[in-house]
């Protein structure tokens, strides 16, 4: 137990030193570290609870996705049957599907064949799983049911999340914050983490807005006030509202969309030449420009509505055809809201609304305080343990303290190597490791004391103490490690930070107990050739 070959001793020290060295980048400012080679740049990341920032969990509105999918299917069925010249009645959404009745029994085979063409293999030509997007079935009595499969809806939600992540990335990057992180979580969720924000309201507005922009003609033939009061909206119209000087004024717009925000290629905030009010100017792509030109040509003198997320921003009258494919939106903007709208339009609309289901924001002030407190608690905890160990075991206590110091340095090294996030509970995990790391030394030393009492000579006692205690150390640490592992898998954010430091702390504790402490004691034994053990 006390013999180490030269290469073994060297490699133990080399490993310890190397791991400790990984912690070095943390002691230099980011600017300095950035000039180092890539492999040397790995360092700890402070968690949002320490550097301040927002953790926002969003969920895609899966009901919206489902409803939209069903509506599209309804439109498809209508188109297919019309193209096939099949007479039908009662086309409606029922449950998770669309049902339609074919008028003539002789048409039903044709209708079934045509409608079956709507169903596609799920996952495209590549990941073909044998599942299809729609189950088409004959319900008898000429009724055909097209049920959207659960797999198809899940797939659509997955795509929505994928698109949303890209769009949110664009939007958040415009805020100019450092290192935002945007990740998918589970099937229908997105986790947005943005460090260092004082007030996340703007961030939340930017990521929570769908930003679906549509240009629709205003219906001048019907009175919007009447429609709002009676609740009777003409079948081809939508009743929307426009905020005008603090009031919500009803506006009837045609359902048909002239041009949509999907055709925008650019949007910039600016100021109106005449009124100097903040505006957003935009540019369409070729197709959009052509449609916009055509629509404005046909409707000179009539107002059109600029609709953002079912809210009319403004409804200007078309004075002349707009042929250049660019225009501007005005409507009670402030400089910031014009800027934000431009950001939203440039990034594009979210495919489905997102809801904030969890938010955790820590202000930078509290973060600073937490770091200071964490440091104080760590130093104090470490100092208490070091003094106590020295008082209890003297020279061997000093050995233990060296091992614990190396242990902590190695924890920081490994955390840096993993680019791990350090949270306040994470610091607690490290402080706790200091408390528990000495346990391995205590186990060894107590065992040595026992062996001495049992009458063994100093060297034999030390040897036996190590060999007997190490098995116990292994057993006892594995149980704690299991708890840490479970915590890592179920935990989120801060709790996970605790699990990581605790788990790594156990590993480094095992390493130091099995190698470093043993090596130090072995050297001491070789040097002093002790007759008695000083503990």
């Amino acid at each position, binding site marked *: 137990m006390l013999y180490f070959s030269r290469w073994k001793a060297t490699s133990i020290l080399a490993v310890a030193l190397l791991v400790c060295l990984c912690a070095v980048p943390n002691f230099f400012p980011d600017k300095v570290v950035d000039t180092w080679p890539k492999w040397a740049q790995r360092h700890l990341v402070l968690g949002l609870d320490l550097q301040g920032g927002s953790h926002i969990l969003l969920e895609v509105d899966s009901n919206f996705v489902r409803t939209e999918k069903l509506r599209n299917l309804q439109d498809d069925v209508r188109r297919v049957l019309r193209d096939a010249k099949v007479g039908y009645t009662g086309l409606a959404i029922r449950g998770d599907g669309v049902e339609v009745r074919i008028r003539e029994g002789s048409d039903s085979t044709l209708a079934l064949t045509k409608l079956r063409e709507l169903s596609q293999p799920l996952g495209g030509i590549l990941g073909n799983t044998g599942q299809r997007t729609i189950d088409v079935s004959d319900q008898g009595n000429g009724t055909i049911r097209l049920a959207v499969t659960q797999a198809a809806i899940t797939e659509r939600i997955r795509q929505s999340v994928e698109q949303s992540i890209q769009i949110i990335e664009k939007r958040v990057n415009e805020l100019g914050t450092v290192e935002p992180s945007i990740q998918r979580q589970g099937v229908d969720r997105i986790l947005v983490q943005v460090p260092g924000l004082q007030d996340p309201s703007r961030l939340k507005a930017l990521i929570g807005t769908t930003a679906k922009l549509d240009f629709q003609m205003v219906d001048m033939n019907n009175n919007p006030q009447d429609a709002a009061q009676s609740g009777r909206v003409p079948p081809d119209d939508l009743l929307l509202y426009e905020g005008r000087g603090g009031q919500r004024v009803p506006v009837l717009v045609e359902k048909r969309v002239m041009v949509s925000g999907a055709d925008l290629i650019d949007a910039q905030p600016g100021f109106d030449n005449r009124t100097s009010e903040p505006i957003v100017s935009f540019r369409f792509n070729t197709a959009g420009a052509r449609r916009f030109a055509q629509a404005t040509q046909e409707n000179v003198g009539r107002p059109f509505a600029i609709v953002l997320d079912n809210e009319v921003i403004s409804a200007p009258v078309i004075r002349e055809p707009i042929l250049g494919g660019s225009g501007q939106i005005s409507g009670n903007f402030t400089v910031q809201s014009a800027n934000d709208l431009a950001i939203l339009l440039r990034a594009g609309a979210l495919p489905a609304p997102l809801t904030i289901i969890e938010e955790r924001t820590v202000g930078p002030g509290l973060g600073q305080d937490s770091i200071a407190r964490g440091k104080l608690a760590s130093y104090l905890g470490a100092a208490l343990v070091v003094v106590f160990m020295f008082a209890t075991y003297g020279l061997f206590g000093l050995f233990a303290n060296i091992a614990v110091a190396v242990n902590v340095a190695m924890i920081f090294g490994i955390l840096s190597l993993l680019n791990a996030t350090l949270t306040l509970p994470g610091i607690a995990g490290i402080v706790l490791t200091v408390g528990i790391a000495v346990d391995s030394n205590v186990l060894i030393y107590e065992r040595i004391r026992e062996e001495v009492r049992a009458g063994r000579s100093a060297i034999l006692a030390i040897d036996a103490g190590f060999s007997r205690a190490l098995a116990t150390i292994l057993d006892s640490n594995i*149980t704690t490690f299991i708890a840490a592992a*479970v915590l890592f898998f179920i935990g989120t954010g801060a*709790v996970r930070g605790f699990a990581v430091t605790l788990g790594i702390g156990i590993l480094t504790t095992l390493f130091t107990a099995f190698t470093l402490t043993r090596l130090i004691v072995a050297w001491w034994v070789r040097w002093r050739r002790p007759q008695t053990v000083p503990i």
Partner: protein
Amino acid sequence: MRLLRIVPDDTNFDFIRFRRISFPVSGALSILAIVLYFFHGLNFGIDFRGGTLMEVQAKSGVAELAQMRSTLAGLDLGDVQLQQFGSPADVLIRLAQQPGGDEAQQAAVRKVRAAFGDSVDYRRVEVVGPRVSGELLAMGTIGMFFAIVGILIYLWFRFEWQFALGAMIANMHDIVLTIGFMSVTQIDFDLTSIAALLTILGYSLNDTVVIYDRIREMLRRYKKMPMPELLNHSINSTLSRSVITHVTVSLALLALLVYGGQAIHSFTATMMFGVVLVGTYTSIFIASPILLYLGVGTTRRDAEEVSSGAGKPPASSPAKPPAKAKTKS
């Protein structure tokens, strides 16, 4: 240099006899804890109940609690709790979950922000919607379950099944008492409490395993020593280690408790109780004596008597009564 000896070398306390006190006391306390849990309940934090937690700091240096309370009461946000902590400027605001789903929680935060305006610094804002809180609770419970099962399987492999069972009973005892503690003190029960419970579990087992390890070693070495004596010897010879380790862990925890701040306060307080008080007590007074009742060591004696000189002892042996009689004395 004189070294500190907390536990004298010749300590030989009869822990096993003490079970006649510790078992009924633990049983009573466990029942009390369960009763408390059901009738007094836990103070579920927003992680599990949903709602909003805001930590604000008055810019003026002193928070006018009464004034803030009346401001918030005018917002029609249901149950609002204000609590001063740390410096006179720091206030914790808790809003109960708002009816109307996830969006309603965000609206409540906006209302509060509008009401206080720039008079306070928003140091921490946490909003947990109804669905997330439900999931977090489920995850926490499942996590506890898997941790216990995982540890048991490990112990079962490393030791005999009696040890695993003994450790599990000790485990339950720890968790039940800690939950009772949380109920009495009405400490916030949140995600970090689950972390605390799992860590308590880990450390308490750590302790138990150290003693069990010694018991196993003694069982192999002393084939004829009566079980109560053997258990006592095992506990006494590891006692010094138990005490010293718990002193170091408490020192570390004490630093965290005093200087760790509000965010981890419930975590450290729970740990302090669970690891330092309950964990140590359990491994000494519950986990080890209970092995008597689980029949550890009985096959050992029988085996030796049956197979003296026959090399390996047979795995199963019907002759149980004599050993058992001795154990109970």
